[in-house]
């Protein structure tokens, strides 16, 4: 029998008996960031494509929630910090090697744009509002003039943001479960999928709903492929990766992941959406709600399971 124990009673808080430095804040932050990124991506995309009319929810309505999502997400991140008084240090330096750093800066770009986007839309929805100050009108005119440029910026940064939510984890080679480059694309896809789901939920147009259902099915397909690919990668890798995968294959995370995330959060909504496209009568809310819940749970599970996975030595 091999026995490996710490005999000096080490019980450092949040490290022992296993890493639990990150609690609900980080997965929530990543979920909200991914969701906002998804919504803003579609908003920017259809603006660039000039298809605002066909996709009113995606371009105009859904983005209204993104500033809230981003601010709540950032607040969750803030709550998670142990040395909050020094929060501002995040913005006195840019460290490209640190996902945490460029993620924070990406949010610095995306969040203001999301506010501007909302402001522009408010103006359109309530055209009779008096904006009181002239410079507001000037600003409005300025952004409207550069709407396409801004959309491009938003498109790119929303992709970075979506990707970042995964790379934050995958940059940690100390946690074998996180240490896979698939996590970036996977979280991006998942973010886009939850974005699409949010749009479906909010949309009043049947057309738009069906369009996003189609998009969502595709995204879910990619996501499922990436997940399977990820586990195959783990199983073909070193012992620590195999053990990381085993957390999900017979280990403590098996049921939550395969039942709640994979089945209820991906497979079932995909099937429901297919049925909907085939004109079966299913309440349209169910699929997107499942996708959103699955997306949230997915981040929680990856955050927690990742902290449970470690190198052996």
């Amino acid at each position, binding site marked *: 029998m091999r*026995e490996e124990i710490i*005999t000096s009673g080490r019980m450092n808080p949040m490290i022992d008996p296993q890493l639990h430095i990150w609690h609900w804040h980080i997965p929530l932050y990543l979920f909200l960031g991914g969701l906002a990124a998804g919504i803003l991506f579609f908003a920017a995309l259809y603006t660039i494509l000039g298809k605002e009319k066909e996709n009113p929810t995606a371009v105009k309505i859904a983005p209204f929630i993104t500033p809230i999502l981003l601010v709540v997400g950032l607040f969750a991140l803030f709550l998670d910090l*142990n040395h909050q008084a020094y929060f501002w240090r995040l913005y006195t*330096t840019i460290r490209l090697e640190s996902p945490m*750093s460029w993620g924070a800066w990406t949010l610095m770009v995306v969040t203001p744009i999301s506010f501007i986007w909302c402001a522009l839309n408010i103006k359109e929805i309530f055209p009779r509002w008096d904006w009181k100050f002239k410079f507001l009108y000037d600003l409005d005119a300025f952004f409207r003039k550069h709407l396409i440029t801004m959309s491009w910026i938003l498109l790119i940064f929303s992709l970075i943001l979506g990707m970042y939510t995964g790379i934050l984890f995958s940059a940690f080679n*100390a946690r074998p479960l996180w240490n896979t480059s698939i996590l970036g694309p996977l979280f991006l896809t998942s973010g886009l999928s939850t974005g699409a789901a949010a749009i479906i939920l909010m949309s009043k147009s049947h057309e738009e709903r069906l369009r996003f259902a189609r998009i969502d099915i595709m995204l879910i397909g990619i996501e499922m492929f990436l997940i399977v690919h990820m586990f195959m990668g783990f199983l073909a890798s*070193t012992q620590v990766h195999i053990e990381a995968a085993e957390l999900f294959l017979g280990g403590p995370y098996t049921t939550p992941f395969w039942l709640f995330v994979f089945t209820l959060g991906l497979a079932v909504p995909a099937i429901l959406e297919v049925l909907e496209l085939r004109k079966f009568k299913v309440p349209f809310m169910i699929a997107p709600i499942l996708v959103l819940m699955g997306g949230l749970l997915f981040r929680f599970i990856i955050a927690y399971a990742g902290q449970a996975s470690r190198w052996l030595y």
Partner: protein
Amino acid sequence: MRYAMAVDTKKCVGCSDCVVACQTENNVPIGYCRDWIVEVTDGTYPQLEIEIRSERCNHCENAPCVRCCPTGASHYSDGGTVLVKKYHCIGCGACIASCPYDARFPHPEGYVDKCTFCLDNRVKKGMDPACVSVCPTKCLYFGDLDDPRSPVSQILKKRKYKTLIPEAGTKPHLYFLI
């Protein structure tokens, strides 16, 4: 200058003196520690073997904790030691999650703490780190790898050694004599 430490697993008795000494020397609060003892037993009674290791931050040459720190609080200092600037650290925990050796922990005051190789309070004053100077079996060796006469260079020349999880690519500066 490259500071490093060697731990003689053949002499370490796992007494944890290095842990208490670090605690009292560096005011590590009770309930926290910068170093710790791992005991690995292999075999079946009575064919047995034990390896005892006094572990701490490896002051990695390629330190993931420095890489992932968003504020630059985690940085390389003299002799390649990896240190944390208390008032730059936001306590985000990224470095903690990035360390394959679980060498860091959140100090109750919020910033992240870990072994400093006693750089400022002892080594710069010409003393050995607290753990090294207290160890009853004298199984800890400290010094500059670039100085062939330093205790650590000397012992690494004489003995077989290993590092922990070299495959993590961190290039640790904590050597275990085997």
